[in-house]
């Protein structure tokens, strides 16, 4: 029988690093030094009851970022507060809200959270603060779960209304006349977790906010907007795009933090030819065990539900053999009931639970206190979420440890072999395009339904008249005798928009597992081809669903909950045709463009891949019609390369360089690699030159193409670097993609092509 002596995190780390089989995988070890608290003054204008309430909760002074934010909001400035995990951002907007209501009980505030669970957490926290201050403030959530009798009360008397963008869009704004008390007296709008509003969802939410501000103006209120964001590259720009107004950036973190070790770990290379590596899950488990045995609170993040289950069983098994604290390790993921989740959160806070294995359900602001070690099995997809997950470990005093175990995927490999990217570089930018034509038109319809448009009134970047005239052709909108534009259809436009997809025509995903089938999601047609074809495994909230039937004409996919050890990946055959060039720039080595393209896509086959190991288990055909997608793309042409290259080599080089650019682009822009499609053409119909296209897999695009065009130089440099630093022989999934022909050195060819594209003068053939 072995017993385990408690030890602090630093000691455990030292002992692990003394063990060669584990220490070998460490590619980078950084130490982030401890940071002292920076205090700011408690504002003198704060109501004495609120100050007393804070004192009773043990808060005598504010951190500097809190003080700065509160002062700015008090002056009526929009702010965006950027703070690391658990640094007390709630106070930044709770105090001004309390103050506004203490001064004038008729004042109202609207809090927006991306999910229901977060909203409920915040209601609890805000209510405690107001109770401590001795203020009775009607704080209520208004979401899909709110019963009808309570809804009427919230509408009439809710001083702080907590809701989510979907509810605001579909239930509050179209019915604004029933909410006139709220809109007339709205003082503060809080947009928490604003970094989650990116991509298509962000574009929708930005338009919902345009509609919200329009309604406020109608009722004569001018609320302050407070955005709270995790650390991303462009928080102020994001907030400005989202709300359409400039915001004051507050990013000086005042909360103290202890010393933190950050380790980047690469699993051993098993086969240099194919690039196969050991499993990140197994390695993460080995790193977690010593911490748990030493009694250190540890959180392990897996990327899927299956990974979580594997980690959980693995850890429990290992701890049982060694008589460790087996029962004190718990799972935490999307499918759990709210009560179970609350119990786990409480257990973590009071120390009853020692270890937790989680999916990214814990990435958002749920309060679990601070732990000793955070171990990530696989790169979560962005620097920002990596730091959020790292941030779960970090006591105010003492040492904490954050570990990222990479998988064999290209993005993971790039990240751990470029530690500066993670540790020093700016985190990714969150992109959204509120002016995506599809999204803009959809919300313009909803906005016209809510209030008629004055002639010349702006909606978004320009006056809306051209767009309204376009809508009028369908008869949904008409210009009346007074020149205003009115909604003139019996449809309810808000119900036609789903905030999570770009196109209006979507496939609805219906879960047939429960007795009463329910809709669990929607995907646009383009994504449906590869996500919900028959026999696909569809992942939703980290749970797996098998697609039993896809009724393409009815746009319905019937799925059933299963537990499988594999997932599916579909291939599509894509042809691409440029329609319109928005901007172009040519240098000697090649030229870059961005613009609108037509993508014709046909889903062909799908592969079954085993979770964690990505081993191929079989394949099947997909029988679906071809669909066309109008979207935006960024493309680069290697002018004149056809004369200098052998045709077959050029083919390989274009594809290899394209893969590397695609990988790097998804890292730089913080998007899922699947959101950017890749097409390479040796002879493009547009320019008659070898061309690499990166198109956005969303109708109309979300502005990624334009951003790639702007960051062209950076992109090519990073792609070249990715290929240069790869340790494989002649191309692997981590750089130029899987090797297709064993005798061709894809790496070398892609490198040559990138060098030409980056050169200032055309390369001269030897």
């Amino acid at each position, binding site marked *: 029988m072995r017993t385990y002596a408690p030890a602090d995190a630093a000691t455990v780390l030292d002992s692990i690093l003394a063990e060669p089989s584990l220490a070998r995988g460490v590619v980078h070890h950084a130490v982030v030094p401890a940071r002292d608290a920076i205090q700011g003054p408690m504002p003198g204008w704060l109501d004495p009851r609120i100050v007393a309430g804070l004192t009773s909760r043990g808060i005598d002074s504010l951190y500097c970022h809190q003080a700065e934010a509160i002062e700015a909001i008090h002056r009526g400035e929009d702010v965006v507060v950027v703070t690391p995990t658990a640094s007390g951002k709630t106070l930044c907007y709770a105090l001004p809200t309390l103050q506004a209501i203490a001064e004038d009980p008729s004042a109202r505030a609207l809090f927006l959270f991306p999910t229901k669970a977060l909203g409920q957490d915040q209601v609890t926290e805000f209510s405690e603060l107001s109770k401590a201050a001795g203020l009775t403030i009607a704080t209520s959530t208004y979401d899909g779960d709110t019963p009808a009798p309570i809804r009427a009360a919230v509408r009439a008397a809710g001083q702080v209304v907590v809701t989510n963008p979907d509810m605001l869009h579909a239930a509050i704004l*179209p*019915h*604004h*006349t*029933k909410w*006139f008390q709220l809109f007339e007296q709205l003082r503060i709008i809080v947009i928490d977790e604003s970094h989650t509003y990116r991509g298509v969802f962000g574009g929708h939410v930005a338009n919902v906010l345009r509609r919200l501000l329009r309604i406020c103006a109608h009722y004569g209120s001018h609320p302050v907007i407070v955005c709270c964001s995790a650390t991303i590259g462009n928080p102020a720009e994001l907030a400005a795009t989202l709300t359409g107004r400039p915001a004051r950036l507050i990013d000086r973190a005042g909360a103290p933090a202890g010393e933190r070790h950050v380790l980047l770990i690469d699993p051993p290379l098993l086969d240099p030819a194919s690039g196969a590596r050991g499993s990140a899950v197994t390695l993460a488990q080995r790193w977690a065990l010593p911490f748990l045995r030493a009694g250190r609170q540890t959180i392990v993040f897996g990327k899927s539900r299956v990974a979580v289950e594997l980690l959980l069983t693995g850890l429990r098994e290992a701890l049982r053999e060694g008589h460790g604290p087996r029962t004190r390790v718990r799972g935490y993921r999307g499918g759990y009931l709210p009560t179970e989740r609350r119990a786990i959160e409480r257990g973590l806070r009071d120390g009853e639970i020692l270890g937790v294995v989680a999916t990214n359900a814990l990435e958002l602001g749920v309060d679990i206190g601070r732990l000793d070690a955070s171990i990530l099995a696989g790169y979560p997809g962005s620097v920002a979420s990596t730091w959020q997950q790292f941030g779960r470990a970090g006591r105010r005093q003492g040492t904490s440890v954050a570990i990222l175990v990479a998988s064999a995927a290209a993005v993971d490999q790039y990240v751990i072999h470029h530690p500066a990217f993670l540790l020093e570089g700016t985190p990714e930018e969150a992109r959204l395009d509120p002016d995506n*034509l599809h999204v803009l*038109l959809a919300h313009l319809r909803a906005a*016209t*339904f*809510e*209030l*008629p448009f004055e002639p010349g009134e702006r909606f978004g*970047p*320009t006056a809306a008249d*051209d*767009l309204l*005239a*376009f809508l*009028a*052709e*369908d*008869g949904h909108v*008409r*210009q*009346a*005798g*007074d020149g*205003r534009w*009115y*909604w*003139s*259809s*019996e*449809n*309810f*436009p808000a119900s036609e928009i789903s905030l999570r997809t770009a196109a209006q025509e979507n496939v609805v995903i219906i879960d047939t597992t429960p007795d009463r089938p329910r809709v669990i999601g929607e995907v646009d047609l383009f994504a449906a081809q590869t996500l919900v074809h028959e026999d696909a495994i569809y992942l939703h909230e980290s749970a797996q669903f098998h697609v039993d039937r896809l009724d393409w004409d009815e746009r319905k996919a019937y799925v059933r909950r299963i537990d499988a050890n594999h997932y599916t990946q579909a291939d599509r055959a894509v042809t691409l045709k440029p*329609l*319109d*060039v*928005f*901007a*172009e*720039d*040519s*240098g000697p080595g090649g030229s870059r463009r961005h613009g*609108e393209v037509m993508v014709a896509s046909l889903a062909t086959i799908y592969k079954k891949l085993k979770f964690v190991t990505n081993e191929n288990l079989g394949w099947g055909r997909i029988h679906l019609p071809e669909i066309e997608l*109008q979207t935006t793309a960024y493309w680069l042409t290697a002018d004149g390369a056809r004369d200098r290259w052998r045709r077959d080599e050029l083919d390989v080089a274009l594809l290899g360089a394209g893969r590397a650019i695609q990988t790097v682009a998804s890292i730089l822009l913080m998007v899922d690699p699947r959101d950017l499609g890749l097409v390479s053409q040796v002879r493009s119909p547009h320019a008659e030159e070898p061309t690499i296209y990166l198109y956005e897999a969303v109708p109309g695009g979300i502005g990624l193409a334009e951003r790639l065009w702007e960051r062209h130089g950076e992109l090519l440099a990073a792609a070249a670097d990715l290929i240069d630093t790869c340790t494989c022989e002649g191309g692997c999934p981590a750089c130029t993609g899987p090797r297709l022909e064993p005798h061709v050195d894809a790496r070398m060819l892609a490198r040559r092509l990138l060098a030409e594209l980056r050169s200032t003068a055309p390369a001269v053939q030897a």
Partner: protein
Amino acid sequence: MTVLAPDARAQLTRRLDRLRAERTDPGGPADPLPYRPVPGRDLAERLATTLAGEVVTGPGGRFVRVEGRTTRVALDRPRLAGLPGQPPADRPLVCLDTETTGLATAAGTVAFLIGLGWWEGDAFRQVQLLLPDHADEPALLDELSRHLPPDAWLVTYNGRGFDWPLLVTRYRMARRAAPAHDGHLDLLPIVRRLFRHRMENARLQTVERSLLGLERHDDVDGWEIPGRYLGFLRGGPAHPLLAVVRHNHEDVRSLARLVQLLDVGYGSAAARRFVPLGDVAGLARAFARARRPDEALACLEEILSRDGNPDHPSAVEVANEPPDTEPPWWSPRVRADFGGPPSSFPSYRHRSATFAAPWDLQRVALDRAHLLRRSRRYAESADAWQGLAAGPGRTAIVAWIELAKLREHRLRDPLGALEAADRGLEAAQRRRRLGQLDPRLEADLRGRRERLARRCDAARRSLDGKSQRR
């Protein structure tokens, strides 16, 4: 290096052109009428000419006023006021029904036709106000306010849920106050309460057919109405609105007819003797809800006194059992069916016409027993339950349980209660032998019997103890 400066407006035009091309795909929204702006003055004139109305111009714009027919609808207001939920005799009544551009009461739905009707003596006068153009809405709303005196009662059909909230929304959109009124008589709930047992749905047309004996000819379906008006706004012809105006006129008139039916047919005890017993039983429930138990009891007793008298309309025709899976159409959980567009969307799923549970004398007696108990007339209630307990079926078991409760808690007769529980169990066991199980009632009776037996034993022992001490 050449940078192509993008011209935003031209680019937008090109993108819209491409969208337009995409939109003409088969399956896209087909609209027969292309957009053509029509001057507001023309709209009002055309509307007035076609509908034989007059254009009225005010500070808020124009509206079209169509005079309706005046008909004789005599009411005995004091008698009407005696019914539950009806307006006091001295309040003016204004019947109101709107036609709208959609079914949602949200901000973008407009009431384009407001039908109004009021009494001048026995004469029922009607007028209809039409909106010629979106821009003229303030004028229409001002006119409506003029027709609603602050002491008036609104008379509507589902107006509490639909017409009035929609109008309030319109007033708020125009940033003005909705006119005050003294009360609102929504006829839908009272129709549901009284007549649901003999109608297949609650539409006003069904009410006309089954209660007023009227059949409409060439009537326009409700779901067609928004399209006809919107087509007109887009430059289409005005004549399709003729049928809409007629439809609305009939709707308003039927409100008056319905009020008259309530007044004449149900306003006095004498009249109630000649209507189906289900109607009176429903009225009894309406009285009970209005906390007027004596009148409710009088209604029920009148029905029970009909028994054996062949001249009176007795039990209604046997109706279908409501299905178990879905609540019946009259349940408050089901949205009223006013004839929406035929749609495959689940919330508008067609429900097969089902009848409410039929009223029969046993059910009336059951209501009476409950009511007596609620009026604290315990002895009479016990007699009523006793009568029911002698009857057949499940009702007998329920009656024994109620008797046991009454005797134990109100009549202070635990021994009697014990006996009632015993008899109830016997009845349950008889039914069990016939294969009809009532596990919940049986469990209730068993628990009750056990508790009562213990209580009686304890009482007996303490009584014995006392007598021994003596």
